[in-house]
């Protein structure tokens, strides 16, 4: 039975005693516990004993000049508790926590790629995001980084060393899915080891779309950064902007006015609807059902028309800014949006009936790609992937942001854990979002939609969490009192969900791989940033 945060703090104090260096707050009202090097494993064990469903939300690295600070953001009791450890730069070694929480696998590999921290005991300490032929001992996110001189591509065949022969020594055939493949929308490489028709092992390799956004954010002002982080992902762009703005407002201690919070809610829910409809149509296309794809995307066009009227553009909204929103919602639009939401609910009834009764859809997605609730909790997956396996987590209810603390809504879970359940979760969430938008429009407060904020942000650090269509989106921003941020850390939901694919794909038929893969809703631009 998970206890509250105070219970955890007390247990930590009792167990670690003198090894705790400092306890503080990470805005807004999140606990930060700084411990000695080597004591982080004990701290995490204490937290796991208090709340056995605790998982890693992100692991951030911050370069502080002579030391590197590692922040382990642990999600427990529906909130985040951060354990901080400082390591000297010349000897950045720390023990891994993958044996305690298996979901920390990719997070640690990423920190070791970017900061050069060695995690002892990690099962697979290879490069995650940087390419194979990146020079050793050059760590991009350190402050003393200078871009290396890359040798010309013809001499360097380091990247090709990764492509082994088709038939390995254990008699299994290697099938390579990607980086270019019709089943994938965005490029990543998955090496499947296949025995006949059954997949035995999956090795993912990500990082093909890495653009260095976290580093680029450090050399642009906060106002320019809003547009930069919006372009991490085209589909869920409003969530990135909302999370960043929330975090910076938390550092400044500024609250967006009530009307702005409701308008943010409306645009976030419109974003969720269009993203889920995009995925449902795409899932239809992957299983060969092109008619479903066309119908779903035709219905999605009406949502894009609303977004165009509201924000000036169909997909990239550029609507949210620090201190509020950029435009107001005109009164004459309200009845039109309400009529569209009503029509959407009617259409969704048809799609729900289709998914529940169509025999070919059920044959392709039921009992395909099953992820049990235990595995979902151990691998720290988020979003509809977790909710399709019965895990009841949703940031909108656990830690309300924008106007969600004033709007009633349901969190939808299904217990089957297969691809069908994950698609049904998204279908029902579209209807819920339509209800939320309707409620928000009826209770829209009047007043200003924006407050002016200074361009220079005071020193401090803060965390923001937003429920993006694909899951929990996590931001950490640190400011040092100038007009440029010191560190922006983004942990996107698909990054946390890739491990689920590795688990799902082991033991299934190779013909089921596209159907189970698409039900995870992967967005690789988000994953690689």
């Amino acid at each position, binding site marked *: 039975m998970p206890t509250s945060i105070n219970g955890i703090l007390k247990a930590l104090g009792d167990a670690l005693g003198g090894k705790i260096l400092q306890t503080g707050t990470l805005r807004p009202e999140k606990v930060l516990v700084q411990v000695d090097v080597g004591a982080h494993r004990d701290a995490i064990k204490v937290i796991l004993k208090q709340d056995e469903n605790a998982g890693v939300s992100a692991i951030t690295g911050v370069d502080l000049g002579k030391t590197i600070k590692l922040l382990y953001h642990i999600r427990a009791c529906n909130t985040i508790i951060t354990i901080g450890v400082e390591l000297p730069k010349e000897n950045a070694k720390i023990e891994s926590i993958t044996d305690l929480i298996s979901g920390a696998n990719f997070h640690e590999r990423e920190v070791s790629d970017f900061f050069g921290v060695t995690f002892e005991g990690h099962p697979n300490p290879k490069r995650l995001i940087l390419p194979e032929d990146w020079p050793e001992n050059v760590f991009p996110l350190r402050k003393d980084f200078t871009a290396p001189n890359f040798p010309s591509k013809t001499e360097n065949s380091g990247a090709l060393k990764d492509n082994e022969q088709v038939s390995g020594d254990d008699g299994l055939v290697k099938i390579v899915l990607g980086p270019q493949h019709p089943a994938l929308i965005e490029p990543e490489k998955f090496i499947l080891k296949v025995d006949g028709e059954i997949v035995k092992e999956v090795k993912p390799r990500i990082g093909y779309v890495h653009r260095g956004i976290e580093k680029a954010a450090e050399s642009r002002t906060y106002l320019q950064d*809003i547009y930069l982080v919006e372009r991490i992902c085209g589909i869920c762009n409003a969530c990135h902007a909302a999370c960043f703005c929330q975090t910076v407002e938390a550092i400044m201690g500024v609250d967006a006015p009530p009307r702005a919070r409701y308008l943010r809610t409306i645009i976030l829910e419109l974003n969720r609807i269009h993203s889920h409809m995009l995925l449902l149509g795409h899932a239809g296309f992957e299983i060969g059902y092109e008619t479903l794809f066309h119908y779903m995307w035709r219905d999605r066009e009406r949502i894009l028309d609303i977004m165009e009227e509201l924000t000036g553009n169909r997909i990239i909204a550029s609507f949210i800014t620090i201190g509020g929103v950029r435009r107001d919602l005109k009164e004459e639009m309200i009845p039109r949006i309400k009529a569209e939401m009503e029509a959407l609910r009617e259409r969704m009834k048809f799609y729900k*009936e289709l998914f529940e009764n*169509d025999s070919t859809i059920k044959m392709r997605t039921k009992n395909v790609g099953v992820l049990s609730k235990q595995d979902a909790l151990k691998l720290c997956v988020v979003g509809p992937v977790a909710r399709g396996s019965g895990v009841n987590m949703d940031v909108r209810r656990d830690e309300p942001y924008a106007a969600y603390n004033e709007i009633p809504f349901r969190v939808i879970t299904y217990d089957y854990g297969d691809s069908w359940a994950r698609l049904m979760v998204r279908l029902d969430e579209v209807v819920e979002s339509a209800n939320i938008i309707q409620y928000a429009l009826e209770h829209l407060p009047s007043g200003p939609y924006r407050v002016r904020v200074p361009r220079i942000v005071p020193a401090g650090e803060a965390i923001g969490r937003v429920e993006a269509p694909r899951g929990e989106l996590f931001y950490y921003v640190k400011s040092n009192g100038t007009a440029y941020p010191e560190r922006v850390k983004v942990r996107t939901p698909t990054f946390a969900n890739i491990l689920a694919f590795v688990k799902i794909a082991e033991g299934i038929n190779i013909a089921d791989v596209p159907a189970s893969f698409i039900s995870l809703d992967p967005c690789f631009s988000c994953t690689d940033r």
Partner: protein
Amino acid sequence: MAKLSPILKEALIHLFKKPATRKYPEEKPKIPTGYRGKQIFDINLCIGCGLCSRDCPAKAIEMVEVDGKPRPLFHLDRCIFCYQCAESCPRNAIKSLEIFELAATNKSDLIVKPKASGAAGGV
């Protein structure tokens, strides 16, 4: 046995409906007001403060000399149409037109120069 899939009836009805696609470029779509399209710049309102150029996230605005005063030059091939420039401008000199057909075969067609004094526009 569950009910028959509803798509059978739906597909049949659609055979007789008008298509949802439009015959572009013969029929153009209706663009709502407030759409973030091509910029229109009024040189008479500009005071040369340079805030648009400083705030542009894509570095698409360059301050050039026109009649001895600094005025913005827009690189539309770099522009991301976020309209932060319009927001930052203290005199509202930058506004949006509802033009979205901006494809060009020549990069120089995509540079919007500030016209000399007297003329409004710059489109």
